[in-house]
C-alpha cells in the first residue's frame, strides 16, 4: 500500500498533467480529467466526436505529457495487421529488407500508441489490436514482443459511416472509457477557437505542453499503488454489484425508458471486465479528489463512460444505441439505491 506522501506526490503530478494539457486544449475540462483517470487506472481510451473538435490534438497533448515513446497509426481501409508488425522495402543495394513495424519498433519503451480513426481499419487489424490492448503482447518473428507500459488511445469519427468498420463488441470492451468529445458551447471559447491564431497551429499548440512530466516506466506501479490504497466499503461494493445487476435486469430496479419494452431491451449486461474498469476508474477519481475511499459520486463520474458501450441491446434496439445507451445508464444511476 502506498504511503500518503507517495499518493500526494503522484496526485500533484497527475494534476500537473491536466494543467499542461489544458494549455493546448480549451473547453474540454471533463474530457481531460477522464483521460487522466484512464491513464492512472491503466485503461485504454476510445475517443469519439464530430470532425475537427480536437480529438487528435488532445491525445497528442497527453502523449507528450506522459513521455516515453509515442507511436501513431492512421486507420485506413487498406491497412493490414502486418503493417503494424513489420515494414518491407528494397534497400539501396536492391536487397529486400524487413524492419519492425510501428507496434514493435519501440519495444518496451512504447508508452502511448495512438490509433487514429480506428473504425476505418479492417476487423483483422482491430483483432490484432485487441490482443495488444488486453495482454500488451504481440507474437511476431517467432517470438513475443511485450509493451508493458503501453496505453492505447484511439479516436473514431462518428459522422462518417462509409468505408468504416464498426468495432466489434469484444474490441469495445477492451477500452476502459468510450468518451464522447463534445463541441465547445461557451461563446468565449468558440470565439477563441475560431479567431485566435494560436489555436490554428496544432504543432505549436502541442509544444506548449511540458514534455515527459510523468515517470512513464513507473505508471503501472503507481496505478497498482492507487488501487491498493483506495478503499471501497462493503456498502459501496453492494452498490456496484447492484449496478451490475441493473445493467442486466434494469426492470428489477424500476428503470423505464420511453417507447422501450424493457423486457426485450438487454441482450447482455456489462461484462466483468467492464465492472472492473468501473471500480478501477472510480478509485482514481477518489484519489484525484484527495480521498482514500470511493463514494457513489466517484462511480457516477465514470459510469456513463465505462458502462455505456458495454451494454448490448437486442437487434431491434441496437440501431438506437446512440440514444438509448446514455439514457439507460442515467436511469440506472437514478434508480439503484444506496446506501442499502
Amino acid at each position, binding site marked *: 500500500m502506498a504511503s500518503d506522501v507517495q499518493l500526494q506526490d503522484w496526485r500533484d503530478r497527475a494534476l500537473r498533467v491536466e494543467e499542461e494539457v489544458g494549455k493546448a486544449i480549451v473547453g474540454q475540462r471533463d474530457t481531460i480529467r477522464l483521460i487522466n483517470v484512464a491513464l492512472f487506472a491503466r485503461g485504454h481510451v476510445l475517443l469519439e466526436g464530430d470532425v475537427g473538435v480536437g480529438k487528435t490534438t488532445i491525445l497528442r497533448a497527453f502523449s507528450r505529457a506522459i513521455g516515453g515513446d509515442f507511436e501513431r497509426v492512421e486507420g485506413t481501409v487498406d491497412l493490414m495487421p502486418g503493417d503494424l508488425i513489420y515494414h518491407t522495402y528494397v534497400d539501396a543495394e536492391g536487397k529486400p529488407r524487413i524492419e519492425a513495424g510501428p507496434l514493435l519498433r519501440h519495444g518496451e519503451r512504447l508508452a502511448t500508441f495512438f490509433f487514429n480513426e480506428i473504425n476505418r481499419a479492417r476487423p483483422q487489424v482491430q483483432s490484432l489490436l485487441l490482443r495488444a490492448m488486453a495482454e500488451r503482447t504481440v507474437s511476431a518473428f517467432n517470438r513475443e514482443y511485450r509493451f508493458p507500459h503501453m496505453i492505447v488511445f484511439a479516436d473514431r469519427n462518428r459522422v462518417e459511416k462509409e468505408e468504416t468498420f464498426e468495432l466489434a463488441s469484444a474490441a469495445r470492451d477492451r477500452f476502459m472509457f468510450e468518451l464522447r468529445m463534445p463541441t465547445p458551447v461557451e461563446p468565449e471559447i468558440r470565439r477563441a477557437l475560431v479567431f485566435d491564431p494560436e489555436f490554428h497551429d496544432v504543432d505549436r499548440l502541442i509544444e506548449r505542453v511540458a514534455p515527459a512530466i510523468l515517470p512513464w516506466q513507473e505508471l503501472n506501479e503507481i496505478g497498482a499503488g492507487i488501487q491498493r490504497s483506495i478503499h471501497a*466499503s462493503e456498502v459501496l461494493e453492494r452498490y456496484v454489484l447492484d449496478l451490475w445487476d441493473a445493467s442486466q435486469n434494469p426492470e428489477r430496479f424500476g428503470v423505464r425508458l420511453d417507447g422501450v419494452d424493457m423486457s426485450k431491451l438487454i441482450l447482455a449486461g456489462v461484462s466483468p471486465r467492464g465492472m472492473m474498469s468501473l471500480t478501477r476508474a472510480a478509485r482514481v477519481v477518489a484519489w484525484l479528489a484527495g480521498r482514500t475511499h470511493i*463514494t457513489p459520486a466517484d462511480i457516477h463520474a465514470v459510469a456513463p463512460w465505462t458502462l455505456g458501450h458495454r451494454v448490448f441491446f437486442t437487434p431491434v434496439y441496437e440501431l438506437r444505441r446512440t440514444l438509448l445507451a446514455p439514457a439507460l445508464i442515467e436511469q440506472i444511476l437514478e434508480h439503484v439505491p*444506496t*446506501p442499502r
Partner: protein
Amino acid sequence: MTCRTEIFRAALLMACTAIATDAVAAQQPSPAVVEQPRPFGYVVGDLVTQRVLLNFEPAALPPAQRVSIWFERRPPRIEKAADGRRWLVVDYQLINAPPALATVQLPAWEIKARGTQLKVPAAPISIAPLISNASGADLRPDREVSLIDTAPSRTSVVLWSIALGVTLAAWLAWVQWRNWRDSHNRPFARALYQLRRLDESAPEAWQAVHRAFDRTAGRVLQIETLPALFERAPHLQPQRAEIERFFAQSNERFFGAGSPGNLVSVRALCRELRRIERQHAP
C-alpha cells in the same frame, strides 16, 4: 395727654377685635344651600340624592366611598340648572336593610375651596325593610307548577349523544386511517413508521430515511445530487442545512472511515420532515 392715650388704646382694641372676628368667621364653615333628599320611603338598593348649590369652584369633590353602615356615596357630578346656577349632585345608595322601620342619618360633610368651606348638614332618612318579620306567616304560598313531560327531551338528548358518539368515533377512525395511509404513502411518514421499531443510530434506520429522500426526489439521491431534491420539493428548503448534514454524515458512515461523532438524530429529522410533508400534501 392721658385722655388722648386712652382714646387711641380703645380704638386699637376695637380694630384688633374686628380683625380677630373676621379671621374666626373665615375659618368657620358657612352653611350650604342644600336640597336634601326626601326623608322617608326608602328600602335597600334605593338611591338618595343630595343637591348642593355651588357658588365657587370646589377644590375637590367628595370621594366615592362608603360613608356609613347604611350608605355608599357614588361619584358626585356637577349639573347646571336652567337659571345658570351650578349644583353638586351627590347620590347615595342604601346598602343595608333594617329589621324594622328606622331613621338613620345621612352623614354631614364639607366642601372646601380656597379660603372658604361649605358645610352640608346631616339629614335624617327614614328607611324600611322590604318585608316585615312579623308578617312571615301571611306570605302567599308558592304557585303550584305543572310537571312537564321530559320524555321527548330525554329521547332527544340520548339520540344526540349517540350521534355525537358516532361522529367522534368516525373522526377518530378517520384520523387513524389517515395516519395509516400516511405511513404507507408519504415517504417520511413511512420512514418514521419504520423507525418506531429501530434504534435511530442503526444503519437500517439511516437507510430507511435515505429511501424516504429518494421517494421524495423521484430518484436516488447523493449529497452531490441534493439540488434535485429541493427542485422537486422546495418546501424542504428550511431544513436544508440539517438534510445536508445528514447526507454528509451518511457518506462518511457508509462509504468513508465510519460513523462520525455527534450523529444527526434521524428520528427528529424525519418527524420534522413529516410535518412539512403533511402541510404540503396535495
